[in-house]
C-alpha cells in the first residue's frame, strides 16, 4: 500500500506526496505522485502508471477527497507518468490534463478527448489552482524533448519529475534525503543516462538556482530539502550527461 504524506501545509494550501509501495511488483519502477491543493481544488502531478492506479487512488483518498482533483499534470509522456490517465477519467471525466504541446496528440493514446488536454507552450505557463498560481517550468530534454516541472512559489516547493530521481534499494526507502553524499550513488547513473543534453541541464541549473526552493521533489526516490536542494543543483551542474557522460553507450549498436 502506498503512503500519503503531507510535506507542506499552510491553511488549505497543501502538498501531499504519495510514495513507496511495498506491495508493488518489483518489475515496476517505484514512483512518487504529488497532490497540490489550494482551497477546494487539487492538482495531481504525474499520476503514475495504469498498474498502480489502485494504490495511488487509495493513498490519495486517505489524505484528501479525490473528487477535489480537477487537474492532472503530466511532466512528460512516459507510461510511468501518465498511463493511468484513462482510469482517472473514468473516475472524473471532467478532469483537465496539463501537458507539453509536444505530447498533446500522443498522450491521448492513453485516454481523454479534445476537451481533456491543456497544451503548455515551450516557454511554460502559469497554472491557476484555487487561491494560488503554480508555474509550469520548462525542462526540455531533461529527459523528454517536451518536459515541464512545477514550481509553487508560495510553498517554495519544486516538483522536478525525473531530475533528482534516485533508484533506491528497498532498505533505503526514506522520504527525504538525509545523507546527500551517500545518495549520489543512487542517482548518478540515472542522471548520466537519462538526461540527454548538457546544454539543457546547465540552462536548467542556472534558471532553477535563482528560485527560492525549500523542497525539490522528484518522481522517483527521495525529496531534497533545505541545503540539499542547492547541493543537488551544484552536483547536477557538474555532472556530464547525455553522450558526454555515456560515450560507450553512444557507440554501441
Amino acid at each position, binding site marked *: *500500500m502506498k503512503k500519503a504524506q503531507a510535506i507542506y501545509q499552510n491553511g488549505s494550501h497543501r502538498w501531499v506526496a504519495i510514495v513507496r509501495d511495498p506491495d508493488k511488483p518489483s518489475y515496476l519502477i517505484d514512483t512518487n505522485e504529488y497532490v497540490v491543493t489550494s482551497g477546494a481544488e487539487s492538482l495531481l502531478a504525474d499520476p503514475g502508471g495504469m498498474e498502480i492506479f*489502485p494504490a495511488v*487512488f*487509495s493513498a490519495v483518498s486517505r489524505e484528501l477527497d*479525490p*473528487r477535489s482533483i480537477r487537474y492532472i499534470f503530466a511532466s512528460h509522456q512516459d507510461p510511468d507518468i501518465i498511463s493511468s490517465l*484513462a*482510469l482517472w477519467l*473514468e*473516475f472524473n471525466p471532467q478532469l483537465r490534463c496539463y501537458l507539453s504541446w509536444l505530447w498533446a496528440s500522443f498522450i491521448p493514446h492513453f485516454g481523454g478527448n479534445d476537451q481533456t488536454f491543456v497544451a503548455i507552450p515551450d516557454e511554460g505557463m502559469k497554472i491557476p489552482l484555487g487561491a494560488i498560481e503554480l508555474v509550469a517550468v520548462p525542462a526540455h530534454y531533461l529527459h523528454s524533448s517536451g518536459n515541464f516541472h512545477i514550481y509553487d512559489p508560495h510553498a517554495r516547493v519544486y516538483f522536478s519529475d525525473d531530475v533528482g530521481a534516485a533508484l533506491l534499494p528497498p532498505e533505503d526507502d526514506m522520504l527525504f534525503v538525509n545523507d546527500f553524499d551517500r545518495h549520489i550513488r543512487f542517482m548518478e547513473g540515472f542522471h548520466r543516462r537519462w538526461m540527454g543534453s548538457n546544454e539543457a541541464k546547465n540552462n536548467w541549473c542556472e534558471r532553477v538556482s535563482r528560485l527560492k526552493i525549500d523542497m525539490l521533489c522528484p518522481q522517483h526516490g527521495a525529496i531534497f530539502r533545505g541545503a540539499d536542494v542547492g547541493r543537488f543543483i551544484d552536483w547536477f551542474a557538474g555532472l556530464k550527461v547525455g553522450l558526454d557522460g555515456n560515450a560507450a553507450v553512444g557507440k554501441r549498436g
Partner: protein
Amino acid sequence: MVTSPINTSTSDQPAANDLSCMIALGEEIKSVGKAAYQINLTGINAILLAGRAGESARGFGVLSGQLREFTRGLAVSMDRLGTLIDGAVDAVSDHMRHRRLMSLLLRTADHDERCADLIAPALQSGAAATARRLDRVTERRDALRAAIDEARALGSTGSMLARTAKIEAAYGGGFRQEMTGVSGEFERTVSNIVASLGTLARLQREGQS
C-alpha cells in the same frame, strides 16, 4: 468489498480467443481470394478453349463465364467479410480495453469502504458501458455469421457451376480432353473454396463459444 457483474480477471481469455479467431478468419479469406483469382484465370482460358471448339462447346463457354462471374461475387463477399472482421476486431479490442479498466477500478474499490464509495459511480457507469460494448460485439458477430452464411450459399452455386461445366466438357468434341482437364481444375479449386468457407463458419462458431 464490492460485488459486480464485471469479471475481475486481468486476463480476458474469451476476448483473446475472439481476436485469434478473427486472425484465422482473415487468413482463410486470403485463401479464398487466391482460389477465386485462380478460377478467374482458368475461366479466361476456358472461354478461349470453348471458342476454338465451336458450337458444341457453347454451354461450356457460358458456364466458364458464369464461373468468372461467381469469382467476382465471391471477391465482393470476401471484401465485405474483411470489413466485418475489422469491425469485430475493433469491437472486441474496445471491450478488452474497457474490461481492463473496469478490473483496475474494481481493485481500487476493494481497498476499503471509502474507495468503494468513491469508485462506485464510475463502476456503475462502467457496467452500463460494458453492456453496451457487449451488445456491439454480439452485433458484429451476428453480422459476420450472416455474411459467412451468404458466402457459403455462393460457394454452393460455384460447386453447381463447376459440376455442370464438367458435364458440358463431355460435349467438347475434339477439345473434350482439354476441356475435361480445365473443368477438373474448376472443380478442385471450387471445392477448396467451399472447404475454406466451411472453415470460416467453423472458426466463427468456435470463436463465439
